[in-house]
């Protein structure tokens, strides 16, 4: 049995980042599925591991790691296997810049759309008293607000519009970046691609008018190239919901 355990949800967004990084490195790990739609991430057993109540978390021996992007850097540095960070410190800077851009700018806007059209409707039908209790248990106040808006469908028009325009700009920026180089932020397949893929695979699905073979050929080619990798196939095969199953659109015909 491996001394690495990953607490994750679907191969998607922050959960998918360390899943794909571990697969690329060939690290065996125990998979502990945390059902986000059942609010497992706010239950005492999980809060004992990550008191912030967010996914993913990883244990390696008696070490506990959170923060998916820093966790991926750890995975890359601590285990043997193909390097997911090029040696050049300048490339590393650019990779970190783009990961931060994804994590703190594009992903929050994109996930507002995801939470309102996907996550909200998926949990809305549950028992109202259970939902209220579940919201009350959430440790981070900002997340309590976000869950309330998702469940009751009360994201504001203005914030949705802003998220939509950020996603549109983010798509244009990614297309531009990927037309300069084969991979995101450097000439090597790296953590920036692992990070970026976990958000960007859903862009053509969610925003078909903005991201498609005509308008963003470089994004689509990059996504297909990543999905072709055995590590990506293995990672997405771990999905249990339709969210992960949608990835099939990237299969080359």
């Amino acid at each position, binding site marked *: 049995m491996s001394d690495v355990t990953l607490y994750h949800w679907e191969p998607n967004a922050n959960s998918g980042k360390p899943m794909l990084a571990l697969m690329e490195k060939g690290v065996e790990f125990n998979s502990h599925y945390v059902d986000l739609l059942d609010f497992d991430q706010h239950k005492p057993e999980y809060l004992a591991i990550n008191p912030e109540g967010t996914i993913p978390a990883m244990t390696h021996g008696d070490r506990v790691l959170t923060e998916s992007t820093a966790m991926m850097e750890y995975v890359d540095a601590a285990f043997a296997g193909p390097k997911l960070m090029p040696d050049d410190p300048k490339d590393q800077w650019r990779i970190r810049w783009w990961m931060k851009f994804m994590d*703190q700018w594009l992903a929050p806007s994109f996930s507002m759309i995801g939470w309102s059209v996907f996550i909200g409707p998926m949990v809305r039908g549950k028992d109202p008293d259970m939902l209220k209790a579940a919201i009350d248990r959430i440790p981070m106040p900002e997340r309590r607000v*976000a869950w309330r808006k998702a469940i009751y469908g009360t994201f504001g028009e203005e914030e949705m519009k802003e998220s939509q325009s950020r996603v549109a700009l983010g798509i244009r920026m990614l297309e531009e970046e990927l037309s300069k180089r084969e991979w995101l932020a450097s000439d090597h397949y790296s953590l920036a691609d692992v990070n970026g893929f976990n958000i960007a695979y859903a862009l053509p699905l969610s925003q078909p008018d903005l991201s498609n073979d005509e308008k963003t050929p470089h994004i689509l080619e990059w996504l297909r190239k990543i999905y072709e990798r055995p590590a990506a196939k293995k990672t997405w095969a771990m999905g249990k919901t339709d969210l992960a199953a949608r990835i099939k659109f990237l299969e080359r015909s």
Partner: protein
Amino acid sequence: MTMVLYHGDPNGPSLTVLAALFETGHDAELRPIDLTMGERHSDTVPRNVEVEMSIEGEGPVLVADGEPMADSVFIACYLNDSATMSPIAPQDPFARWQMMTWCRQIIERVAPAAAYLGVKARLADKLSALDDAVFEKLIAPIKSGDLKARWADIRAGAFDEAKIDDSKAKIKAAVEKVDTQLSDGRDWLLGDFSIADLETYAWLSGMRDIEPAAFESATRTGAWIGRMQARPSVARTLSLAKTTAPHQTWAPGPEINRWG
């Protein structure tokens, strides 16, 4: 080829990068600019998408091998990783994870809060005193729409009560975290001196006269601030100030993060 660093007065991200430069011993030509007057967007500073869309807001720009770089923590990592001895970042993967995670929390929670309170106290009046035409010219070249909007809000004095309260709470929590971290008697936040000390000091030291209550009982934090100021790299950085109180220089920073 020597590097060129365009930096503001030593506070916030400019402080982190200047001190990181001195800690790592790289040769760089220093070019001071006034971040509080939007000079980072003037033609004198080389820009690319990473500079223009940096979510750090108004921070320094390091040009190395012709490539402009933004985001203070990552520039500091670059300076460390291209130096010979890894002087300000641990090489052990787990210690590095601790440093990156610590810095991420500063970047995501403390920096937006400090910048919000800082510009309210130190920049809003200065901007509102500008003629409309001067201000319009200042913000016209800003490519990031959200950064531009923050400039306009600051000038208009449009500060949200909930965000002010949230920012004060974030500063208080950060000082508590620092004080707890130092409770075993260590000198530096993560054991060895690192970028985490620089980035934390850079955003918190200017909060002492804006949110004094947060620091009142934090004696260990006070002593750590003293050690930081005595460090040659930080002392040298502070000596570059163009104003008498560089910790009172605040330019628009990162936006307040909505997901916590």
